[in-house]
């Protein structure tokens, strides 16, 4: 059984115009996937379907063998970490520290000692420690992107979906992200990255998928 199974998925926002048709993909838990495609081809929509934010009308998506429509968003969130394309949509806590701690506080995880170390580590990695008591809304675009990444990486999830994670990152932070991706690879964790940066993707993924109106092509 694959971690993710996308079976004959077709999706459209309007009845007349199908965004993509008949997509079938199998993703393993420790696989590293890259997803590319032109603007507006439905990359983020596909991810939203994979997370259960949007519901598929034709075809089905299975997460660990269960239909995604039958799993609550919070349960999906405990298994799959998602970095939004727009970090503003992901940051909702009053302080940076609380944003990092949110999943542990409301997600039902114990052992606060170990958690604090983990949060410290990721805040240091993404150079956000000095903002720990600041509001995420006061950060710059790049800093928000780093916080969104750090808050997802700090969580113990099986699989990660990163929607254009390099947007707004400078060279140094991009290198740090690359380091984190290497660590994830070493830990045997899988991820899927949506990006327009072909060079970045080819270095960090095992399989590159191209999304188009007729479906997905594997490169």
């Amino acid at each position, binding site marked *: 059984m694959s971690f993710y199974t996308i079976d004959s998925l077709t999706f459209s926002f309007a009845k007349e115009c199908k965004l993509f048709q008949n997509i079938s993909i199998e993703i393993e838990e420790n696989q590293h996937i890259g997803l590319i495609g032109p603007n507006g081809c439905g990359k983020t929509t596909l991810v939203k379907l994979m*997370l259960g*934010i949007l519901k598929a009308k034709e075809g089905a998506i299975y997460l660990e063998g269960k239909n995604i429509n039958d799993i*609550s*968003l*919070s*349960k*999906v*969130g*405990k298994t799959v970490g*998602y970095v*939004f394309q727009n970090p*503003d*949509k*992901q*940051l*909702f*806590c*009053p302080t940076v520290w*609380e944003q990092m701690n*949110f*999943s542990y506080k*409301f*997600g*039902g995880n114990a052992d606060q000692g170990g958690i604090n170390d983990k949060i410290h580590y990721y805040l240091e990695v993404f150079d956000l420690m000095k903002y720990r008591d600041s509001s*995420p*809304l006061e950060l710059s675009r790049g800093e928000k992107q780093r916080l969104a990444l750090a*808050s997802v990486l700090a*969580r113990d999830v099986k699989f990660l979906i990163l929607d254009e994670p390099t947007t707004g990152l400078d060279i140094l932070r991009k290198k740090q992200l690359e380091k984190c991706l290497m660590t994830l690879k070493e830990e045997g964790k899988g991820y899927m990255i949506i990006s327009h940066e072909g060079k970045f993707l080819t270095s960090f993924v095992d399989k590159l998928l191209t999304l188009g109106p007729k479906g997905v092509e594997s490169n």
Partner: protein
Amino acid sequence: MKKFDPRTRIIIVFLISSAALMIRQLAPLLSLLLLTLILCKLFSIPLLGSIKKLKKLWYFFFVLALVQSIFTSGGETLVSIGSFRLLTTLGLQSGISIITRMSIIIYSALIIASAPPLEIVYGLIAMKLPYEIAFMVLLAMKFLPLIKEEFSDSIIAVQLAGADLDKIPMKRKLSLYTYILTPSVIKALHRARYISLSMECRGFRAYPSRTNYCKLKMKRADYMAMLATAVCLLIITV
């Protein structure tokens, strides 16, 4: 469908909603609802679709009508528990009146809401409303769905961060909602600031008056629609 002047829509909605607030008897209110539905059809508003979209609001109105029915005494008793009169004819009439009145107001508001927002602004300016206030109306109309969108995005983010909203105890849930609500409002205010900045960058309020590319002109159909509505309202109220 004939394209009506935005002023026609505004005047018709003003007439209908004022009448809905003034009429007290049930029979004229029901006639007014019928007139509103006919006008909605005339302005090509999908009635069934809007009922589905406002599903939660109808539930609220239904509860409101139920409470009103129970707490209005008078008339013959329809349902009673012992000596307590639970539902009377007057209470039932009052409950139906509330639902009817709210339906009239909502459907008449859809006549304006279904028009392109900028047209309504032009209509308000043509009715001698200062253009600053007319644009404020436009922004307010645009902002309600934006705040809703911000809030639902935050709810999705919260759930994807692992919080199960159905299982969290009420006290924690309330603190969670304050977590979400505050940044949603701040984000909406940020957007408002950017919109006002971009409007000012394009010369908004640089001069006391503002010229418009679109010139509005009332046609015969507009006068006919307004006159027909006024006549029907007269017949209903008298």
